[in-house]
């Protein structure tokens, strides 16, 4: 709008910053733990399908199994295993958080704190796993 038209009319102010409704859940810890639980769950499920098939190759021949499992030992797959273990560890600890929230009133009230405990335990577990795994993948 041209500035000259201001006059006595109340100038159109900028619309208030849009805030999503229901901020108790949306965009908060509860939502993100749910999102991550879904994404990691789906990823683990599809890995499981592949992993059963590749392990079944032990029934075909030693050569067939070794050829496929050898691809799990390449640097790129080694990084993929970091992602896989990261997904599993998050899904595991957040699953325990879900159980606590379901069965224990204190945990229901403190589900946000529990989310940060899950993240903290995830970090600790990954610190224990990742360096050792990457040394195995990249040095032997």
């Amino acid at each position, binding site marked *: 709008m041209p500035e000259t038209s201001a006059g006595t009319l109340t100038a159109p102010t900028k619309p208030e910053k849009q805030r999503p409704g229901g901020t108790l859940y949306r965009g908060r810890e509860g939502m993100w733990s749910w999102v991550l639980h*879904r994404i990691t*769950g*789906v990823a*683990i*499920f599809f890995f*499981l*399908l592949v992993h*059963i*098939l590749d*392990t*079944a190759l*032990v*029934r075909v*021949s*030693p*050569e067939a*199994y*070794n050829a496929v*499992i*050898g691809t*799990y*030992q390449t640097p790129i797959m*080694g990084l993929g*295993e970091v992602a896989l*273990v990261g997904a*599993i560890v998050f899904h*595991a600890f957040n*699953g*325990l958080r*879900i*159980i606590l929230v*379901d069965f224990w009133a204190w945990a229901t009230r403190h589900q946000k704190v529990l989310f940060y405990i899950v993240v903290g335990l995830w970090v600790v577990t990954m610190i224990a*796993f990742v360096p*050792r*795994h990457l040394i*195995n*993948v990249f040095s*032997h």
Partner: protein
Amino acid sequence: MTTIESPRAPARLAPRRGVNLEKWGWIYMRASGVVLIVLIFGHLFMNLMVGEGVKAIDFGFVGGKWADPFWQWWDVLMLWLALIHGANGMRTLVNDYTNPGTIQKVLKGALFASAAVLIILGTLVVFTFEPCPAGAPADLLPSFCAA
């Protein structure tokens, strides 16, 4: 004239007959989840942390593990619990993101079929596994095959 119930009146549940499968599914996800944490963390530790980790895995490694019924049952229990847990979790997503109809039935059928086939396949593999197949090069086999 219809009477309006008090706002705080408890909802009347339709009388149910038989088992509530959704309730048992809910319980299964939690019970199997706790057991799977033990089984999968143990699996990851044995296969990725001990010794040279992923680099040590080959036919001989698997043969050595499954020579022990303890690890056979560990892996079979993990197989059953994890696939049912995973397929049931995927069923939740199908319920959330598709409408009832043919596509939903096909997706759930595919989940059920893949879980059933892989459970049967995996169980057969673990219990019919031959660690010392005749004619295979000895350096690919577990060390006890030479004896």
